[in-house]
């Protein structure tokens, strides 16, 4: 895919536009995944690795796995609550 060459007349054709949109969507998805990953590592490190030893122990990895699942749960609860609030504000 090459977007550096401006198309004739400065306009993208339909197929190029489609590709561009897909690329934008993919980049946004990557950015969101990175943000989630970073926050999860941060939160679960704080919750589960209170005194770092020479390696991650069994109980620590178990805690981290559980913490990751709960973080996703929390994310979904927050997302749902915020969506419902937005809908209520809009119907006011």
């Amino acid at each position, binding site marked *: 895919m090459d977007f550096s060459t401006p198309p004739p007349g400065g306009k*993208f054709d339909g197929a190029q*536009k489609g590709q561009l949109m897909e690329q934008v969507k993919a980049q946004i998805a990557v950015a969101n995944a990175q943000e989630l990953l970073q926050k999860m590592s941060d939160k679960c490190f704080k919750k589960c690795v209170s005194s770092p030893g020479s390696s991650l122990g069994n109980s620590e990895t178990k805690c981290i796995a*559980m913490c990751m699942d*709960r973080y996703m749960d*929390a*994310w979904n*609860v927050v997302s749902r*609550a*915020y969506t419902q*609030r937005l809908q209520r504000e809009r119907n006011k």
Partner: protein
Amino acid sequence: MDDPQMQRFLESETQKQRFQQLVHSLTDQCWDTCMGNPGQKLDRKTETCLVNCVERFIDTSNFVVNRLEKEGENYIRKESESVDKWN
């Protein structure tokens, strides 16, 4: 960007991304407020706390905006008065 289709697309993606970003930041804050030690599943108490946390955060943000709007004029008036005094 004078392509209307592209403009609509970018506006809607920007809107969606703003939503996602706020969910990231709310989850971050409300996790610290509500989460004890992570268990086998999310318990009712934590879930209620998360929902309340989101609701009260939005209340707070609305209150801040409204109060500043209402009192903004007073602030500006006072500011200009005190500037007058110094001149």
